[in-house]
């Protein structure tokens, strides 16, 4: 039997340490934002109170919605409706204006009229894109950085398995009352092993979701470089022809929707509904209407079916369903998106995400603890990693809480130096996050406790401000069926309580830096 050599184990240790230190903060930010994104629709309702609508099953006429569109939208080459669901009770609506910009709004499902909404990116517009790209849009650089972090996470997981000799035994070992370094490592091992399959699945599926971005040449080569053809064959995309300029009325979209759903349901053997109604080249004789079941309620797989109709005649021109390998890939991607209707599993994902945050944070902490006695007072590199770790862990949590507080505090017409209200909320996040790094650089270990206190205060402030600025305090939200709001408040209170407890523990355990003492005896 071949044994793992000490040299190989050492190499894995090297890779594990340095990839973790260099990319740990990015991984933590991606995991943290991904964890919040699991409940993005619920946080959206909390941040945009006008969308706190109790969902009712109703037949929505897209013919009527299209007839009532404002003139600019009616002439749009790209009109998109997102069908309301329990988690997204408003009708999502966006269109591309004549100048190419996208306009995003929500429609009241009862009246079809646009909702006057709080100007906020909220979770779907900020946490979600942050999770994908760190909000760095230039040349998709953010997506590439996140992709590198995801690849590094897979390497870290595999290398972590090699460097731990007694991996099963370590799962059952957690000694919180031992010295900080030992307890940190125990918690790192425990949190790593407890969610290991989940931690593999997330970066792997995340990379697969963005395969078209990461491997364009490899994918395009099979299609002679024609990426539109690749999208069409692999995901059912349909590129509408250029507008002809000859007007033509649109056939009934509601009838097309019924036909699409009947086709899909017959193929699947159970009712299948569309999530997406898209009209391309509206009002032109080249118009097409596109339906997709992006997020099925009762299955993991994404976007199994696409139906495309000729807009003028209402004739079906394309009925796409995923082939077997495409379905397998879409299942893996669906397991990442977790949009299926399974609340216990969604909560399990949430706690899995938090477990991933603990794993990454304790890994970075252990790196610091291991070098504390040698480097804490002398090494600039150590101090940089220390400040980045504190700001990257408690700092981003505090910045998130500040984002929620700003959402409830800023007046509806807030604007500053050309920055609109939504932009101001985001600036609050960035400024707070930057501040936490500076705070950590100056106060060093004391910053942990202070930032925990600040998280506790901000979390409670967000709950109180929600009660003060909207009719839905926790009791009202619970009694009115606004579960999204109530649960967001409850999670905020629990998070504040946890931060308070952590702050108290840190204050109790405050002791002189070990580097100021003689080196601790070896464990």
């Amino acid at each position, binding site marked *: 039997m071949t044994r793992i050599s000490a040299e*190989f184990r050492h190499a894995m240790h*090297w*890779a594990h340490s340095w990839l973790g230190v260099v990319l740990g903060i990015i991984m933590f930010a991606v995991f943290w934002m991904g964890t919040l994104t699991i409940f993005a629709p619920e946080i959206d309702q909390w941040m945009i109170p006008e969308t706190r609508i109790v969902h009712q099953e109703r037949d929505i006429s897209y013919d009527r919605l299209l007839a009532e569109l404002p003139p600019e939208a009616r002439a749009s080459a790209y009109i998109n409706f997102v069908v309301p669901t329990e988690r997204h009770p408003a009708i999502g609506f966006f269109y591309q204006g004549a100048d190419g910009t996208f306009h995003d709004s929500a429609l009241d499902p009862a009246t079809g009229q646009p909702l006057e909404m709080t100007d906020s990116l909220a979770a779907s517009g900020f946490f979600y894109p942050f999770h994908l790209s760190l909000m760095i849009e230039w040349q998709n650089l953010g997506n590439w950085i996140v992709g590198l972090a995801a690849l590094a996470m897979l*390497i870290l997981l595999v*290398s972590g398995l090699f460097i731990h000799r007694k991996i099963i035994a370590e799962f059952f070992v957690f000694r919180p009352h031992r010295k900080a370094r030992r307890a940190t490592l125990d918690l790192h091992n425990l949190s790593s092993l407890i969610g290991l399959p989940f931690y593999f699945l997330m970066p792997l599926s995340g990379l697969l979701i963005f395969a078209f971005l990461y491997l364009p040449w490899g994918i395009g080569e099979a299609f002679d470089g024609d990426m539109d053809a*690749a999208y069409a*064959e*692999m995901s059912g995309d349909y590129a509408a022809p250029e507008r002809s300029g000859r007007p033509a009325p649109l056939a009934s979209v509601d009838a097309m929707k019924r036909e699409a759903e009947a086709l899909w349901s017959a193929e699947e053997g159970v009712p299948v509904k569309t999530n997406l109604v898209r009209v391309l080249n509206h009002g032109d004789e080249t118009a097409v209407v596109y339906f997709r079941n992006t997020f099925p309620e009762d299955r993991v797989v994404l976007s199994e079916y696409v139906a495309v109709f000729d807009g003028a005649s209402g004739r079906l021109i394309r009925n796409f369903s995923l*082939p077997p*390998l495409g379905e397998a890939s879409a299942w893996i991607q669906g397991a990442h998106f977790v949009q299926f209707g399974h609340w216990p599993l969604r909560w399990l994902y949430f706690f899995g995400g938090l477990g991933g945050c603990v794993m990454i944070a304790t890994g970075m902490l252990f790196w610091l603890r291991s070098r504390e006695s040698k480097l804490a007072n002398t090494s600039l590199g150590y101090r940089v990693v220390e400040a980045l770790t504190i700001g990257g862990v408690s700092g981003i949590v505090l910045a998130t809480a500040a984002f929620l507080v700003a959402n409830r505090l800023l007046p509806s017409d807030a604007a500053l130096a050309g920055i609109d209200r939504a932009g101001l909320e985001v600036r609050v996040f960035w400024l707070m996050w930057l501040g936490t790094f500076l705070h950590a650089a100056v106060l060093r270990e004391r910053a942990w406790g202070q930032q925990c206190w600040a998280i506790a205060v901000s979390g409670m402030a967000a709950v109180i401000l929600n009660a003060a600025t909207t009719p839905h305090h926790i009791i009202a939200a619970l009694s009115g069926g606004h579960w999204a709001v109530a649960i967001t408040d409850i999670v905020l209170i629990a998070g504040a309580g946890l931060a308070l407890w952590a702050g108290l523990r840190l204050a109790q355990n405050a002791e002189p830096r070990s580097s100021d003492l003689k080196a601790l005896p070896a464990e």
Partner: protein
Amino acid sequence: MAGAIQQNGPGRIAWRLLAAFGGGYALVSGFVAMMGQVLPLIGVARGEAVALALMLALFIYVPVCLMMFATPRPWRDGLAVLATAAALILLARAI
């Protein structure tokens, strides 16, 4: 015992990283392209061939990175990664 990786200077570590991430990227790009060209020859649809290749790509990329971090012969193995990538790309282009 000092591991192989600690016996390296900055140049060899940089080469390991370049061959792991850059060479690995070229290798999986070539692999996806090659699969997208070869599998259709045996009747697999192009989209299906590419979907399969994409799902397998990470099972190649991650081990390549680990190998490049662990190998005691980084120059030779890094060149082997690059040569394999080039061969796959050329094969995909030739079909």
